[in-house]
């Protein structure tokens, strides 16, 4: 059941938009290197060499060219969806604004890379791009002589122009790659490659598309003739027809306004009260488990402020998003201690681990025997409807915030019969790694892990995400029935 859910998440295209964008980039890069070997950077050779790659290399060249084109289109689509999705989920505020802001220039670089590639083919579509790009740049008050002078007639374009184009078509994508690496700088264990099954399925789909509808060139560019009806790439060149429709000045205004709005969003959208993690050096033993688990690289290990030869965690509040996964990783949170019960070395400032445990204990004391605890997160399904005479609920910021020692303690000392962990949908954790971290703790694959076998059998998981209330209700009923049958 858990494996199926994991695969469902790992193969969900919408949960892997960032990873797919990277994947498409690498397909474009590899096929681009192949095409570059055969491409001729000259006015007469450019079009002919691309046609030769497509027609004279028995499928290989055609496939490479088509993959190059369709992976580019795929990247434009996944990046656009990625932007919309992160915007919808509010993942652009506070500490996450770095990734958001560093992603905005990448949009420009991606479209410039994509459009630049069509220019190299030097067919009628390239001619349209040349003339429209010139019209766009000539509107900006930075050019002395209109760029359009270079394309007035065929005789004015030289071989050196193609050397410049190929330089740009290598340089801009390399800048894009650099920008992509900066974009993920503040994420630990970033997902930059989709799971193998998804990657293979995407590649097969692209290959089939390349066979069914191979990329072809138009007629050779002829600057001595006006363009009439041409094929254009509506995915990459969607703003170009607007130049004819509303004028280049309005197109710039539109693009700059949109970019400006995206830049301003993290500053104008109010975010909820900022919660960060805080370290209590008196209880931090310097184990480093929070440092390992933090999905945002917000924790560093430094020399302990009062104990010599000891380390302690230090939270970088600029990077901390307040997910609480670090608090769930703290081994000193264990309530089995004889003193300082459940006091832990790292906590969220608004609700410490000990307070969470006290709240659950109070809630369980009110329940009858055969107690069930359902733990969820703020970004998953609603839990209130599950509350009953025997069922208690607990909502955390992230499911990774729950120290597994609490489950050991509550089952052993508070008569808890069954535990159901829920939260975001599998593969779609709002805080990136909360589900897999908690799964790892339950399965003894990472620290701190669940200690007792008799507790482990009482714990089940159901990663439904928002809207999974009905499934959770059914799962709770099943747990209660199983419990009654055992009795």
């Amino acid at each position, binding site marked *: 059941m858990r494996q*199926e859910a994991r*695969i469902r998440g790992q*193969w969900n*295209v919408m949960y892997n938009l960032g990873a797919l964008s990277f994947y498409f980039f690498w397909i474009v890069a590899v096929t681009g290197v192949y095409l570059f070997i055969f491409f001729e950077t000259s006015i007469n050779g450019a079009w002919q060499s691309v046609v030769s790659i497509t027609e004279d290399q028995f499928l290989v060249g055609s496939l490479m060219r088509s993959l190059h*084109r*369709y992976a580019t*289109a*795929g990247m434009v*689509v996944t990046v656009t969806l990625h932007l919309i999705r992160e915007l919808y989920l509010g993942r652009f505020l506070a500490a996450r604004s770095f990734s958001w802001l560093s992603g905005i220039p990448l949009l420009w670089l991606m479209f410039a890379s994509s459009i630049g590639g069509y220019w190299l083919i030097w067919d009628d579509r390239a001619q*349209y791009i040349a003339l429209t790009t010139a019209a766009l740049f*000539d509107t900006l008050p930075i050019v*002395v*002589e*209109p760029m*359009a*002078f270079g394309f*007035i*007639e*065929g*005789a004015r374009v030289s071989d050196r122009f193609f050397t410049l184009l190929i330089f740009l078509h290598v340089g801009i994508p390399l800048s894009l790659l650099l920008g992509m690496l900066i974009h993920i700088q503040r994420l630990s264990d970033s997902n930059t490659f989709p799971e193998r*099954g*998804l990657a*293979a*399925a*995407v590649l*097969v*789909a*692209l290959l*089939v*598309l390349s066979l*069914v*509808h191979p*990329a072809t060139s138009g007629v050779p560019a002829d*600057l*001595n*003739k*006006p*363009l*009439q*009806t*041409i*094929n*254009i*790439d*509506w*995915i*990459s060149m969607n703003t170009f*027809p607007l130049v*004819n429709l509303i004028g280049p000045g309005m197109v710039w205004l539109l693009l700059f306004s949109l970019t400006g709005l995206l830049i301003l969003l993290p500053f104008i959208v109010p975010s909820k009260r900022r919660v960060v993690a805080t370290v209590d050096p008196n209880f931090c033993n310097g184990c480093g488990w929070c440092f390992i688990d933090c999905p945002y690289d917000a924790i560093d290990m430094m020399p302990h402020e009062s104990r010599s030869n000891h380390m302690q965690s230090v939270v970088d509040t600029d990077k901390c998003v307040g997910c609480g996964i670090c608090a769930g990783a703290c081994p000193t949170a264990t309530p089995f201690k004889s003193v300082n019960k459940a006091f832990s070395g790292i906590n969220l400032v608004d609700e410490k681990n000990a307070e969470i445990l006290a709240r659950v204990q109070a809630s369980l004391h009110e329940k009858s025997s055969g107690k069930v605890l359902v733990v969820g997160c703020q970004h998953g399904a609603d839990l209130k409807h599950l509350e009953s005479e025997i069922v208690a609920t607990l909502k955390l910021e992230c499911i990774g915030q729950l120290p597994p020692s609490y489950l050991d303690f509550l089952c052993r000392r508070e008569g808890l019969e069954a535990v159901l962990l829920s939260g975001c949908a599998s593969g779609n954790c709002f805080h990136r790694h909360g589900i897999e971290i908690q799964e790892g703790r339950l399965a003894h694959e990472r620290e701190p892990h669940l200690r007792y076998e008799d507790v482990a059998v009482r714990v089940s998981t159901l990663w439904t995400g928002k809207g999974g209330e009905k499934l959770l209700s059914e799962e709770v009923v099943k747990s209660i029935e199983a419990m009654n049958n055992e009795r």
Partner: protein
Amino acid sequence: MNVDIKVRWMLLTGLLMLMALPLGFLTDLPTYTVNNADTTALKLVVRHSGLTLGECRVLDQEELNQLAPNMRRPTICPRAKAPLAVSLKVDDALLIHENLTPSGIHDDGVLALFRKLELVAGDREVHLSVTHSLVGKKKTEEFERNISVDSNSIVIVEYSDDGFRFYQPGVETL
């Protein structure tokens, strides 16, 4: 990989193929009409170094004394170029009128203009007038041509330091 996962993978691949097909076709289709078939593109190209705005004059002794010894040249010539007014009429209809200022922070750069018009093919009377606004006077040059243009062709009207030129690229001068 058990059977269930294989089935899931095949379904996923099929779904992705269905999603990829419109993606592939959108990289080509629908076609886009840039210019109508029965029109001619008329391109106006102005690239002129410009005329010096004022004339050179001889400095008097008092002005020379104010200069450093190595800068004491008897005449001084202004660098700035005169603005240029450009008007293009086709069949007596004024289609373009632009006032160009010289580029450069000292107004001594080139005067440049590019405009493109769409004309219905046929016999046309094209009239281009350029006026350099010098200090205290204006210098106007006018050119006129009766041309017969075909559809699906380009006509270039150019004004540069070499003078005035009508031509159809790839064809003889009109």
